[in-house]
């Protein structure tokens, strides 16, 4: 597969994952603002922005509706949902011949939907309807992809992008939240507001899945265990890292090139960290540091993928 094409598929996928993550966090934050007794709107907004990666130009101006509009529609801000969807589409447009027509049509429809006057009207009547339709559009795109695209190298680059972005975003979310949530746990204060914990789970669409595993008894330690270490839940970091690892193995299998040691050991290290550490060990150590390490590792893996598959030097390739 052409390096440029792999690059585009990877970013198409990352952008969509990012859009979905932004939508979910905005939805949860806005619904938490409805309940009395918690933090004020500005604190919540800034908290959410931190979890989305500290974007500039999204500073709180006191008007939630305006801010939400900006975060959804402001095409000039890299933080916005529309920016991400446009980015995904631009990447897809450059690899139209690689993805299936059905995939392209889904994504194209989502793009036109976000740019239509209808979306503005929908926003004015119900913000959460807009958010729900974005998530629907992205899910449809992924579903159509799963059933119509060849599950070859291109598909693996799509998965690579999605799960690397997801692992990174979930680690960021937990890192931003950990001081409040887990330190309150260490103070043996079990009264941390229930809704906040539900909100954290919902940011990862994890509430129902959590209940299936642990019942509705929400404790910070279990939530950390679930979102960080669960092997079967698609939004858990460990699951995402396993998917990244599988995708890289599949790419290497189909390409027949010897994997660079740095890449396989980097991903192996991350996999082992999540597979062979208990939540007690993490909590008795420095959870913030642990989460931070995960993020660093994700960044490193991204760089290695780039230097091995996309931006390699001609001399090194001719030498093989």
């Amino acid at each position, binding site marked *: 597969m052409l390096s440029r094409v792999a690059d585009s598929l990877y970013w198409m996928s990352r952008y969509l994952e990012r859009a979905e993550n932004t939508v979910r966090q905005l939805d949860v934050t806005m619904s938490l603002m409805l309940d009395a007794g918690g933090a004020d709107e500005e604190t919540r907004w800034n908290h959410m922005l931190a979890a989305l990666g500290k974007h500039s130009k999204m500073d709180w101006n006191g008007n939630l509706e305006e801010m939400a509009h900006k975060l959804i529609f402001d095409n000039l801000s890299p933080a916005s949902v529309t920016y991400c969807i446009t980015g995904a589409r631009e990447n897809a447009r*450059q690899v139209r011949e690689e993805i299936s027509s059905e995939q392209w049509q889904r994504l194209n429809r989502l793009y036109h939907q976000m740019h239509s006057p209808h979306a503005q009207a929908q926003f004015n009547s119900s913000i959460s309807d807009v958010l729900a339709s974005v998530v629907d559009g992205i899910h449809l795109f992924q579903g159509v992809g799963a059933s119509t695209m060849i599950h070859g190298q291109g598909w693996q680059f799509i998965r690579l992008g999605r799960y690397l972005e997801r692992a990174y975003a979930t680690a960021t979310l937990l890192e931003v939240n950990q001081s409040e949530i887990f330190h309150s746990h260490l103070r043996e204060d079990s009264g941390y507001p229930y809704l906040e914990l539900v909100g954290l789970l919902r940011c990862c669409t994890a509430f129902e899945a959590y209940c299936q595993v642990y019942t509705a008894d929400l404790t910070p330690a279990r939530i950390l265990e679930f979102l960080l270490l669960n092997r079967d839940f698609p939004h858990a970091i460990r699951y995402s890292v396993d998917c990244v690892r599988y995708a890289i193995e599949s790419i290497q299998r189909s390409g027949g090139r010897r994997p660079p040691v740095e890449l396989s050991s980097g991903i192996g290290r991350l996999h082992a960290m999540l597979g062979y550490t208990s939540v007690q060990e993490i909590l008795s150590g420095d959870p913030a540091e642990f989460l931070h390490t995960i993020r660093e590792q994700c960044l490193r893996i991204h760089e290695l993928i780039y230097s091995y598959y996309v931006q390699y030097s001609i001399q090194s390739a001719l030498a093989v």
Partner: protein
Amino acid sequence: MSAGHPVELDSLFGDYLLDQAFDEMREASGELRPQYRALAETLAGLPAPELQRRKQSADLAFLNQGITFTVYGREEGTERIFPYDLIPRLITAAEWDRIERGLTQRITALNLFLRDVYSDGKILNDHVIPRELVYSCKHYRRQMRGLQVPRNVYIAVVGSDLLRLSNGEFVVLEDNLRVPSGVSYMLTNRRVMKRTFPEMFHSYGVRPIEHYPQLLLATLRSLAPEGRPEPNIVLLTPGVFNSAYFEHTYLARQMGIDLVEGRDLVTHDNIVYMRTTDGLKRVDVIYRRVDDDFSDPLIFRGDSALGCTGLFNAYRAGNVTVSNAFGTGLADDKAVYAYVPQMIRYYLNEDTILPNVETFLLGDELQRKHVIANLEKLVVKAVGESGGYGMLIGPQSTAQQREEFALQIEANPRNYIAQPTLSFSRAPCLIGDRLEPRHVDLRPYILFGDKVNIVPGGLTRVALEKGSLVVNSSQGGGSKDTWVLEQ
């Protein structure tokens, strides 16, 4: 309205203009041509809202499939769907047979001409075509002299523009021998039409065109360098900002080949490679959709970032096939065009089947005087331009425009030709809820590998604005599906 067709047709036609121009659907008397009767009856049988509903659903299909072209210079809504008319243009089997034979003859002769000019130049030595006309052509590439082209095929992919004059005869207006575009619209038009009017396909025997990508692939494969039995074929595009980018992706996908940009290619020891996730992979055939000038900064324009450095040397070494060959624009130069009938006579010893449009060469003093005296009746075109740019349409021009053009002609006569203003045919288009006639041309797509292959049909381009004669998509033109009938 005239007698002979049912009353409900009248509401469909309204005040449909019929004059000396050939109408594809109706005779001068207003009578429907036989092949169009079933079509007209189907349309008249549909309630007006139903016709509009089908039009909307067709528009939506184009938008959702991203069949768009790019309008430059605006931030939002930079993509428009290619304007599309729902009423198919019909060509009978007999008409098509003549077109097919005529184009085959023409393309064969043009290819022989390119081969001759870039090798021995017999046609020049025999004074059939003036030497200075060829050497002064801006698309002549001296680098091609003496270069052996695979299977001697210079022009593997061609789109020639035909017009139908008032007497019903088809003539050739120009040949596109460099990077002809529009074939994807031909293919998608057909797909959308099949969804929109399935019942009409039942009543007509329409010859299929859907195998074009397969034919194109076979053509490219037949031109692969010797000793490469499983050639790696790619389509070279200028990139996502090119207005025909949709077509490039469409064809690559339909053929199952990689769509590459110049930055994906590298050359080493006169071999072209592409950068893949598995390392470098050798490229054998390039279907080139990048102009000569931008293809290789080492040989052509040095400031181009779209091409691949070293490509031409790899081509000259015979390690990669590039189609179309470089320098083919020489043969679609509008002044060289005037000599195509002589080429057909010279190389094939045959009479021309599809005639040219009468053309005045302004390099010739007598012809130039005549043209400058009669500018208001003529169309003047720059020889190396395409897309409807650089032309003066006499009857629609102002005295000042004519004066300016006359000066330009005197300054550089070789750069211009003139042709009479043609009254070319009109076909019915759905405008609002009525049929109105609009001027149309026809661009069939010709493939040339082992032999000449033409899919039956082509792109019918429409000048959608009332009275307009310009069919180019860059200037408000649209298209419609073209049906070549079994009978």
